């Protein structure tokens, strides 16, 4: 079993790699077609702006490669933070931009209905599990994870597997067939994060 962590120059790949090593999962960090094709599962990490993420995917030819691997070959993929947000139809950070369109919905700025709550949303927060998901095996219903983001993925209810409260209820994770996504950072969420990544790798 081999996981490919997609390197599209957005964010710290080292943290995800450290966890994969810790859970003794075979992995490679790459953006090359061969290594992506030879892997059984994919992780799309990401910290930064939506447009830059999409631009980098396009420049590296990854939109086509990943489209084939994920939509046609149905390889399991876990999008983390920006990585998950790029699955959307479009994002509204600094203008309107097209996403991968793999899960319908839009990425919009967080708007807590509580002026004591600041954006970005930074820190530990509980999630409310809405649907059964292999990702949440052995993880309690109101488990804590670490968040750091200013935008959220507004996705269809049938694809939202968990939410978080921050002056409103927002998408914490999504799932659609072989596509999995987390707004929080499992690689920074201690035991819960390790368990979630173990579940993804074992899926």
């Amino acid at each position, binding site marked *: 079993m081999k996981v490919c962590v997609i390197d599209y120059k957005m964010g*710290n790949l080292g943290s995800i790699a450290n966890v994969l090593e810790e859970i003794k999962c075979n992995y490679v960090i790459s953006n090359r077609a061969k290594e992506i094709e030879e892997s059984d599962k994919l992780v799309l990490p990401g910290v930064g702006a939506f447009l830059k993420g999409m631009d980098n995917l396009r420049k590296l030819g990854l939109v086509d490669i990943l489209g084939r691997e994920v939509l046609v070959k149905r390889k399991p993929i876990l999008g983390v933070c920006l990585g998950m947000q790029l699955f959307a139809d479009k994002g509204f950070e600094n203008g309107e931009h097209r996403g991968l369109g793999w899960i319908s919905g839009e990425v919009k700025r967080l708007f807590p209905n509580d002026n004591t709550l*600041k954006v*970005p949303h930074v820190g530990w927060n509980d999630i409310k599990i809405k649907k059964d998901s292999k990702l949440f095996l052995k993880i309690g219903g109101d488990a804590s994870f670490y968040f750091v983001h200013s935008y959220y993925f507004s996705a269809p209810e049938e694809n939202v597997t968990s939410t978080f409260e921050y002056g409103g209820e927002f998408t914490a994770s999504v799932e659609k067939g072989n596509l999995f996504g987390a707004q929080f950072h499992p690689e920074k*969420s201690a*035991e819960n994060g390790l368990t979630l990544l173990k579940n993804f790798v074992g899926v």
Partner: protein
Amino acid sequence: MNSRNFELQPMVNLETMIQHLNLKAIDELVVLDVSRKNRKIEDLCQNVKLISKKCFVPISAGGGVRKIDDFYGLLNSGADKVVINTIALESPEFISKASETFGSQCVVVSIDVKKGKDGDYYVYSNDGKINTGRKVLDWAQEVETLGGGEIYLTSIDRDGVAQGYDVGLIEKVSKAITIPLIASGGVGQFSHLTEGIVAGASAVSLANLFHYIGTNLINAKLYMAQHGVDCPLWNF
């Protein structure tokens, strides 16, 4: 290093610490290079790399950070946030520059204070050696205005003496800012942690009490949860 009013005493080496520290019960880790001589960012980066192999929560690293390049080095080594102190006092615009380059959530400004004879709290620089003459409230507010993401506030008077945080200090500063305040200096018992939160800290930090004993941190969190503090609890 063990610290008592900023006087240092070596305790254990890093490798041993990583094995014994209950990294599974910590919410966030702060790693500060407090070397008084030959302090080098490259060494801190190496240590952060080591720590990040076993620590799966956000890591804030600092100690002698003076340049934007130091930020890049630490972030690439596995740190999520960088802690700055003296450089911010010397060149406050550095806070803005770092915040604009990396995002304010990445910039933690550490403020060390001592109570003066007049009852006011004064900010110290250079490992707590130099009284800058600045008052903590003014500096804390300036840090927020300049783009600091969080303030790590240490009472030098309370550091390492296990008598509890300076609750008055925490109350004063937390009321004056809207960014998160992390309290530091003085924890000796679990109840001190709750006092820090009640006084207005967004987070409580501690060092000495938990360097050695594995389950202490878990018990501390359970204690806090029992006393009404909303903190992450894992499958303990």
